[in-house]
């Protein structure tokens, strides 16, 4: 199992870099995953990014799915394209939020 080393932490991820355990995530782990994805080298991440990540985690806990992106951005009080402007795209945000590799069911709210 691959491990990301970050400021003394050892973070277990799968072969594609998705966090192994949902509960292992915290703000510092988010920094490590963001750096690995080439998003940000500064820690902590900005409030805008963290709000998106936390919302995605809460939504995942309840629905096991991606939120509808307009609803995500309105809930965190950001412009409707927030998942694309704060991260390259929502899939990257999903990974940094410490969520597992997406299955087809994850996209169910998008209807495809």
């Amino acid at each position, binding site marked *: 199992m691959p491990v990301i080393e970050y400021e003394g932490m050892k973070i277990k991820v799968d072969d594609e870099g998705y966090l192994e355990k949902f509960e292992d995530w915290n703000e510092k782990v988010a920094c490590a995953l963001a750096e690995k994805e080439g998003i940000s080298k500064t820690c902590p991440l900005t409030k805008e990014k963290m709000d998106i990540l936390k919302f995605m985690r809460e939504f995942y806990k309840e629905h096991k799915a991606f939120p*509808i*992106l*307009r609803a995500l951005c309105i809930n965190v009080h950001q412009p409707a394209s927030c998942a694309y402007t704060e991260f390259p795209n929502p899939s990257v945000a999903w990974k940094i939020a410490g969520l597992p590799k997406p299955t087809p069911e994850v*996209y*169910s*709210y998008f*209807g*495809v």
Partner: protein
Amino acid sequence: MKVVILGGGSAGVMFANRMRKEFSKDQLEIIVIEKSDKHIYQPAFTLLLFDLEDPKNLIKPTKELFYEGIKLITDEATKIDPENNKVTTAKSGDISYDYLVIATGAILNLDEPAGMKEGLIKAQSVFTFYTLDGALKLRDALKKMGGGTIVSTFAEMPIKCPAAPIKMILMAEDMARRMGKRDKYKFVLTTPMPAAFSRPPYMYALNKIFSTRGIEVLANYAPSEVDHEKGVMKEYGGTKRDVNFDILCITPPHGGDTVIGNSEGVGDGAAEWVTCDKNHMVHRSFPNIYAIGDCTDFPTSKTASGARKQAKILTERFRSILGGEEPKATYDGEIICPILTRDKRVLFAHFNYTESISPAIESYLNWVLKVYMLRVLYFDLMLPGLM
């Protein structure tokens, strides 16, 4: 006992007619509030683009779709008051209900991305087939085109019939091939999702079709701006991939009807989809309000096939509820999406909340069903609640 149905589109008509068959006038008063006096068969818009359907076959007067004993009010619902069990209308005053079924469908939001609305009004290089008028304009533009770049794009998800932009680009590519002009065209599909379709086995079949037929797919692409004069689409995010086009077929962002946004606590507060239980179709906050069809936040495709199944299941639930029994029928998210892949071939994506139901097969039989039979089945059997 009175049931008010908001919306006389596919879901509203199917449900109203099924309920009228189920309950006598003495048992139940059924009122439908619908603003449009015309009902348009939208699933054929992709057929119109390639002259596979005649627009005059797609429109029927709304009032002719209902069984006798259903009261149709042609008016706009402006607000739902769930605390007092009433709906406010623009011209007909307040209408009270014992049960409310919301079937208001989805509307198009033309304000985003920037420049899209201007492009659609100009109708020179930017089109959408999500309206009848738009589909006819795009059909004519495709006919005039001798070569160039055709781009089909989803602006945002979810949308009605999420495979429709895929059908458009596949059929356009096939049209160029059959005219012997394939080398004069470039075809691009952009999607804000990680892939054009996420459900196996359909995603594998479609990915293979895209790659073998030379259709470029840009994933994770959220358009921010459309410049119809320069023929360029730009994206949000870090990669900044500009897409050049001669014809851009865009699917505007969708949302719930204005009445949902005007009614506190009924919608999701974002795109204004009605928040309801995905299996029981009952509103999450108001136990005498239900929703079916495209207006809902069900985690499945927004299709007429889904509306048909939901109308059937909800009628069964009402049979139990009004009979004093615990309702057992549940909606499992089943939808069927016919994807035209090329001339004489259609692939059916058929799935529910948890699993894919049919294999990914392109067949002529599916083509016959989609192109020649579905409209007739829709008007003659599905809307009357007989199928």
